[in-house]
């Protein structure tokens, strides 16, 4: 995998090469988008193991759909659409499992502390800070998980991916004003939930 391929080629070009069977191009594409896809899923479903499985599934779909890809939208919009469809399907199947099998899903333990410690131990100086930071992370993820799915997704796309309302609308399949109203409600709900944690 050359650096030339890594930096100069746009993602659409890498995908076109991947469609012809170029595994290096596909690997570059994965390494370029893996963190954003993984974090998008993790913030939406709140469980690391499930997020990693789903992120792999996203790239499998990208590989399978590479030949049929038509560059009507930006590559990121396309890959986020795939990611979001998988996230919503996962959510549905988790609900179905809960309904029919009456069992807890893995997704019900958002931001488990042991996961957090292994992930962020190097970035935070003292053990107390690490503990506090882990607790805060758990609270935020918990509050986040209680938001309705479409509000949660709109907020993730805005806050963490920095997308415009128009791009979010394209990804979620709704109008700009609908995105605005989703975000207003999401922020209001989240503020109420986080305030109740602070009390």
């Amino acid at each position: 995998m050359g650096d030339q391929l890594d930096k100069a080629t746009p993602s659409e070009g890498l995908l076109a090469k991947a469609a012809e069977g170029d595994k290096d191009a596909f690997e570059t594409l994965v390494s370029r988008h893996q963190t954003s896809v993984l974090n998008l899923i993790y913030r939406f479903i709140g469980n690391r193991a499930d997020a990693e499985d789903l992120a792999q599934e996203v790239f499998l779909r990208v590989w399978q759909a590479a030949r049929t890809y038509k560059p009507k939208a930006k590559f990121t919009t396309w890959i986020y659409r795939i990611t979001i469809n998988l996230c919503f399907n996962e959510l549905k199947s988790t609900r179905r499992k809960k309904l029919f099998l009456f069992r807890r899903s893995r997704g019900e333990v958002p931001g488990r502390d042991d996961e957090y410690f292994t992930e962020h131990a190097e970035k935070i100086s003292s053990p107390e800070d690490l503990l506090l930071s882990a607790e805060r992370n758990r609270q935020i993820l918990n509050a986040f998980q209680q938001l309705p799915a479409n509000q949660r997704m709109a907020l993730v796309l805005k806050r963490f991916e920095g997308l415009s309302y128009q791009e979010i609308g394209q990804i979620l399949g709704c109008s700009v004003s609908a995105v605005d109203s989703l975000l207003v409600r999401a922020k209001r709900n989240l503020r109420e939930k986080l305030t109740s944690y602070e009390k």
Partner: protein
Amino acid sequence: MNCRSVQKRLSAYQDGELRPGEQERIMEHLKICRTCREQYAGLERVWQNLGGLLEIQPRPGFYLKIRNKINEAHGRGFLPRLRPIFQLLPAPLAMVPLLAIGLLIGTYLGYALVERGLSPFRHSPVSYFHEEVTLASLRAFDSMPPGTIGDGYVRMVSYAEEVYR
């Protein structure tokens, strides 16, 4: 601009999604209005809190697992490829063809058992006052066929009349 219309637009203002003129008008309003400023500070707190969620990194071997999944998908047979189609169907809808298949199998097996005389519910020929029911013996067109309540009532009345006579 009044507070109501400003507060409606605060979220879009925070996201920088308003037209330039509108963005500036809200900025000016926030300088003079304490209530709206507090509302906006609340939104900013939410934004900062969300920033506290740290980023996770893929575990080593992430790409290898994707390659394995791709290889597995290539080697899959016909039926597993149909799985996504079935996943689209909600469970009750998926139960309808299963129920229909069950009914068909049940009807066929039941019919086959009766035909061969293997039915566990063996039925004796219908008898009617120890008589075999045939079309000739079936007095279905009598005004009061024997064995009916009406027939019993008529017999009772005629017996009573004979007694009292």
